């Protein structure tokens, strides 16, 4: 149960500014839209953190007006709030005053209603639409006139004389169904407008009608390259709420699995970045070695991509008798071949030309956009949750937090390559000492989480993954929100790519390493 400060909408912007300036709350972790029904109204919960002190603050605000709910924007204080507020507008219909770009983020522009409201019936109002969505070149902004009335204004995204190229949703280098509208001048990028939502599944809404064990199945399907870590976060959050302590054996298994998953994800990152740059041979190197991790997963979990392994209070099944042996074979093997990766790719002069100094993201922007994970650490922001707020066994093992200062694509690449080595170090420290014990704590057949709000954070393969849970004591969550690791990266892409070449967009896309199902939850 966490303390949440309540601030009235009128005072919100001033108070937020004060927090940002005086208490150095420079990192907006999450912005969660909420529907508390008729008494509570529609509102937002802000999770803030200071990168200096590590202090956390939760703030909530709400408006009773359900017809035309309005809240002040904070997008001028934290850049990422731009996208987060669009998400809340999309789901709850809360209009943020002075927000420069009040479009829907995930759903179609012609969608009727706001599906996350508890009284909304999306299927009734939105029959299957057989026409294509129109693409708008303008966006509404809502401001207050001095006399308190509302003024609507159209902001232009692209004007008709601009050469706008559509990259995605079906494009080989958007790593999934992501769509960018890119305004070009020759080959130079002038502006990028990311359009999300092509595989939006409303997982958070579905969770509200699923029991807690059922919600687990869907987290694996968000960032499928961080399936273990995501599920670890949700299990941890529910366990924290229930006051369940998992056995040391489970802690060991979860930590090892998380790190194997991280190596898996980073190998895939290497492979895909190489392919984006046109190097097909390194691509196969990455996939060749990733296959060995998937084999290890398959033996223990049954699945290769979607593992469904962590459960509330433990793990699905005990580790396979071969697990320790195969992991101990794999680590020296990977150490032995990793020099091939550097020989063919890292030290290649063309790769250096393409990555060094390209796509700069400053530390301030990384924090303001909330670009965590390898992308943040490449910009000099030490944001590793494993060090900042240790969970699992990360406070007991010895590993280095990789931080680079440059903030370019090459630093983002090197962070991941170095993290593979650190992950292997972590696994080596744990693999021989897995203690005996139960792999699953006995849980009640029906899990009811006590009333309150809870959150848990883990370092997933590509950044800080967070779970925010509000329970009203039922067997289903009242609201379950996931902090997407990819959305901040996509939000920052316009800043990163300004005035680079179109080929750099592809390289930057590869180097910031997002996974689309995690953005379109």
């Amino acid at each position, binding site marked *: 149960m966490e303390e949440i400060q309540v601030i009235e909408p009128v005072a919100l912007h001033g108070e937020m500014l004060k927090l940002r300036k005086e208490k150095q709350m420079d990192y907006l972790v999450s912005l969660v839209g909420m529907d508390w029904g008729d008494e509570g109204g529609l509102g937002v919960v802000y999770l803030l953190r200071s990168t200096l002190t590590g202090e956390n603050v939760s703030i909530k605000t709400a408006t009773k007006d359900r017809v035309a709910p309005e809240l002040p924007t904070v997008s001028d204080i934290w850049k990422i709030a731009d996208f987060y507020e669009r998400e809340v507008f999309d789901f709850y219909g809360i209009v943020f005053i002075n927000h420069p770009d009040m479009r829907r983020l995930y759903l179609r522009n012609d969608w009727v209603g706001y599906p996350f409201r508890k009284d909304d019936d999306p299927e009734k109002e939105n029959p299957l639409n057989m026409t294509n969505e129109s693409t708008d070149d303008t966006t509404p902004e809502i401001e207050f006139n001095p006399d308190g009335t509302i003024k609507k204004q159209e902001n232009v995204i692209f004007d008709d004389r601009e050469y706008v190229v559509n990259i995605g949703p079906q494009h080989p280098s958007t790593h999934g169904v992501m769509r960018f509208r890119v305004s*070009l001048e020759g*080959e130079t990028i002038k502006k990028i407008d990311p359009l999300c939502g092509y595989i939006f599944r409303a997982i958070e809404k579905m969770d509200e009608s699923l029991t807690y064990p059922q919600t687990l199945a869907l987290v694996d399907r968000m960032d499928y390259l961080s399936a273990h870590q995501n599920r670890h976060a949700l299990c941890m959050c529910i366990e924290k709420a229930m006051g369940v302590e998992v056995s040391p054996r489970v802690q060991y298994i979860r930590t090892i699995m998380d790190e194997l998953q991280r190596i898996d994800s980073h190998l895939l990152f290497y492979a895909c970045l190489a392919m984006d740059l*046109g190097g*097909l041979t390194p*691509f196969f190197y990455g996939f060749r070695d990733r296959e060995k991790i998937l084999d290890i997963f398959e033996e223990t979990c049954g699945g290769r991509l979607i593992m469904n392994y962590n459960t509330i209070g433990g793990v699905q099944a005990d580790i396979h008798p071969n697990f320790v042996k195969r992991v101990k074979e794999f680590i020296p093997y990977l150490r032995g071949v990793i020099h091939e990766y550097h020989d063919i790719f890292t030290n290649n002069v063309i790769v250096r*030309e393409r990555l060094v100094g390209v796509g700069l993201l400053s530390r301030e922007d990384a924090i303001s956009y909330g670009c965590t994970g390898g992308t943040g650490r490449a910009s000099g922001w030490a944001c590793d949750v494993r060090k900042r707020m240790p969970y699992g066994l990360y406070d007991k093992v010895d590993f280095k937090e990789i931080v680079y200062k440059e903030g370019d694509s090459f630093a983002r690449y090197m962070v991941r390559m170095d993290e593979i080595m650190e992950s292997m170090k972590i696994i080596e420290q744990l693999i021989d000492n897995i203690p005996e014990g139960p792999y699953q704590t006995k849980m009640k057949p029906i899990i009811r989480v006590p009333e309150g709000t809870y959150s848990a954070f883990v370092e997933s393969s590509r950044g800080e993954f967070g779970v925010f849970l509000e329970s009203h004591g039922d067997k289903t969550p009242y609201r379950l929100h996931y902090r997407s690791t990819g959305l901040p990266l996509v939000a920052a892409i316009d800043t990163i790519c300004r005035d680079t*070449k179109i080929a750099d967009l592809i390289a930057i896309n590869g180097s910031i390493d997002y996974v689309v199902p995690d953005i379109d939850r």
Partner: protein
Amino acid sequence: MFDFSIITNWLHQSLLSVMPEVWAVVLECVIVGVCIILMYATLAIILIYGERKICAFFQCRLGPNRVGKWGCIQVVADVFKMLTKEIITPNQVDKFLYKLAPYMVILASFLTFACLPFNKGAEILDFNVGIFFLLAVSGIGVIGILLAGWGSNNKFSLIGAMRSGAQIISYELSVGLSMLTMVVLMGTMQFSQIVEEQADGWFLFKGHIPALIAFIIYLIAGNAECNRGPFDLPEAESELTAGYHTEYSGMNFGFFYLAEYLNLFIVSSVAATVFLGGWMPLHIVGLDGFNAVMDYIPGFIWFFGKAFFVVFLLMWVKWTFPRLRIDQILTLEWKYLLPISLVNLVLMVLIVVTGFHF
């Protein structure tokens, strides 16, 4: 040394005995044309199969291995598949230019292909400005690419075509200059004479330092000319889906595909002819016994052996290096290759004037 002109002379004589000379020449032209097309198609199939196998071995894979022994008729099957595919013309394209483009590309490729001296006496187009003609007709290809990009009415295609225009026209300079360097040494532009003059040593060895520099520059620029990695920006599948041929299907796409592989072969065989002696066997002055043994190997085997060796070099490069960016490609050409080529040309002239070559 096996002389192919024995066969052509015999054919000519036997045709003359049954028909007037005009008809004989017309018939011979048709036969030669059909032979070129057949050889073109066969070479394309061999090259595609070779590329698929070679890149597979570079990438820890096996490559095609199901259709036929070692997958050797996989490409033949692919060609038949391509032939049966529907040729789709998208709605808003410039129909004339769109349909013309692949023929321009394949035409340029055929014309350059016809210049190659395959064996002693087996030159098809052989006249005193052979190299000049080859450079000129190979330039037609870029028109086809530009037409494809413009006619497709697709933004990706257009960007691909613009890149291609900038790239090919730039690198033509380096190709031209490195050829010019060699012409200074060779003293002729006729392919048959070029090969004959290498009887006492290949030009790569005769021209030593400047020839080696010209050879390397020619390989880089030639690789860029045929739009292959690391210079495959006009297609850049991860950026522009397929670049200038995004909108093409069926055999229209097939023409681009064939031309790409044959251009690779043409670049390699020109390198083999000018620098590595063409069909001329390896001769070392003073070792007559060795030279006589080498002469027993027929010329076309030498020619294809050398050409495929260069093809392998270019494939090796393609499957090792990632892709450059457009500004880096132009920097490489205009700031490095072009000045080096110019200095190299002067160096070669000095060496030829002072007689410092072999």
